[in-house]
C-alpha cells in the first residue's frame, strides 16, 4: 500500500484496538478493522459482534478446520469463543440500533473534524456499498475510524468537511491513521499519539483541518 510513512496496517489496527475496554462489545468492519482482533490486548475481555448475527466470534479458523457456514462480516471463516450465540439479522441489527455495541471500528475514505465520515460512495458513483455501515455508525456508542492519513495523490483524508456523501454525521470519536491517533474536536483534530519518525509539523501539513496536540505527545509504541 503506497509505501507511505508511519504505521503499517496492523499497527493502525493495534492503535484502535488498544482503546478497547474490558467488557466491551466490539464490531469490526471489513478490511483493516478486522485486524483489531489480532491485537494483543492482554486479558481485556471483548465480545466481537458481526452484523450477520454472530455474537462472540474468535480467531479466523485454521486452514482445514473451517466451518463453511460460519463467517464474520467480511466473509472470513471464523471460530466461536465459549459463550457465543447466533441470532438472525433483525436481532443482530436490533443489537446495533439498540445501542448495545460499545464501539464499531470502520474504514473510511474521509473523516471530518466534526465527526462526520464517508465510506460508502465514491465521487460521481451511482449507488454504492452501504452494508451495515450506516446502522453501525448511527447507533454504536462509539465509532472509531481507521484510514490512511492521505490519498495516493497526497491530499488529506482528515478534513474540515467531507466532500463525499457521508455515512453518518458527528459520530466519530477516534481516528487511527498511519500517522497517529486523532480525536475530532468539532473545530479540528487533537493528536493523541504520533507515529515514530514523524514530526508534528509533517502531520499538520498532511491534515486538512487545524491540528492540536496533547501535552507531552506520546509516540506510538510498536508491538513486539
Amino acid at each position, binding site marked *: 500500500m503506497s509505501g507511505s510513512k508511519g504505521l503499517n496496517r496492523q499497527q493502525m489496527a493495534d492503535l484502535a484496538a488498544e482503546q478497547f475496554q474490558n467488557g466491551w462489545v466490539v464490531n469490526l468492519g471489513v478490511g483493516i478493522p478486522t485486524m483489531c482482533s489480532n491485537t494483543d490486548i492482554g486479558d481485556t475481555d471483548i465480545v466481537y459482534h458481526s*452484523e450477520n448475527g454472530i455474537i462472540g466470534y474468535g480467531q479466523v479458523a485454521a486452514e482445514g478446520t473451517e466451518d463453511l457456514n460460519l463467517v464474520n462480516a467480511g466473509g472470513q471463516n471464523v471460530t466461536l469463543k465459549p459463550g457465543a450465540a447466533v441470532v438472525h439479522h*433483525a436481532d443482530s441489527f436490533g443489537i446495533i*440500533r439498540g445501542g448495545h455495541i460499545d464501539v464499531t471500528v470502520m474504514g473510511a475514505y474521509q473523516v471530518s473534524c466534526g465527526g462526520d465520515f464517508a465510506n460508502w460512495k465514491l465521487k460521481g458513483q451511482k449507488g454504492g*456499498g452501504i452494508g451495515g455501515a*450506516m446502522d453501525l455508525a448511527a447507533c454504536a456508542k462509539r465509532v472509531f475510524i481507521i484510514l490512511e492519513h492521505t490519498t495516493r495523490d497526497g491530499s488529506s483524508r482528515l478534513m474540515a468537511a467531507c466532500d463525499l456523501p457521508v*455515512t453518518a454525521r458527528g459520530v466519530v470519536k477516534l481516528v487511527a491513521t498511519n500517522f497517529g491517533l486523532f480525536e475530532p474536536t468539532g473545530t479540528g483534530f487533537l493528536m493523541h499519539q504520533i507515529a515514530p519518525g514523524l514530526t508534528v509539523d509533517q502531520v499538520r501539513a498532511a491534515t486538512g483541518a487545524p491540528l492540536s496536540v496533547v501535552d507531552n505527545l506520546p509516540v506510538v509504541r510498536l508491538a513486539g
Partner: protein
Amino acid sequence: MAARSKVVGGFREAVADIPDGSTIAFGGFAMPGTPFNLIRALLEQGAKRLTLVANSTGGAQQPRMPDIGMLVENGQVAKVICAFTAATRPTDPIPFTKYYEAGEVEAELVPQGTLAERMRAAGAGIPAFYTPTAVGTELAEGRETRVINGREYLLEYALPLDYAFIRAARADTFGNLRFHRAQRNFNPLMATAAKCTIVEVDEPILPAGGIDADDVHTSGLFVHRLVQVPPAPEGIWPAKRQERRK
C-alpha cells in the same frame, strides 16, 4: 399438523409456478444460508420483470456461485433492493454494478439493518417504523423524518414479499427449520415476510416433531415448500472461498 408434508420433489418443481413480476427475496450473507440451488432453478425457469431483495447481488467471491447478479445478466430482473449496488472496496468490483450503471436494471439501496427490519416489519404486521439509520445522509434527502425525544429519525416502510428463497440446515415435514451458525442471517425474516417461502435443506427432512419445540428457529407456519439438496455435483454446496488476486 402432522398430516401435511411440504416436501416437493425438486428445485424445478419448487419454482415452476413463479410468475413474471414477482418480488422474491434471497437469503444468505456471503455463502452461508444462500439458496444456490433455487437461484439456479430460477435461472432455468426464466420468470421476468422480477424485483429481487437481498443483502448483495453477489459475484464478489471466487469461485463464483449462482447469485442474483446472474438473474440480472439473464435479463430476468427489473429491480434489485439491496445494501450493495457496488462492492465495499472499489478494488473488488461486482458484476451487478455495470448493469446498474448502464441503466439496464433499477436498484434501491437500503442500509442492511433497515433492510432486515423492513422485512421483519412486513412479517409482523408493522406497516412503518422510525430508525436513526441514514439520518443526515444522501439516502434521507427529501424523505420524512421525525424528532422523537430530541433525536431525528427516518420513517421506513415494511417490505412485503411474494416469495422467499432460503437455505436451512434441518427441517421437518411441517416446515420447522433450524439453521447452522451464520446460515441464519436474513432467512428467518424473509420467511415471515413472504406469501410463499421455499427452502433448500442440507440434511434429510425429518418427520414432524423431529425438531424439539424449543429448538425451532423458524416455525413451519412460515414455510410452504421444502427441497432437500442432493449431494454435489448435482446439488450446490458452499465452497471454500478463495482470496481475490489483487
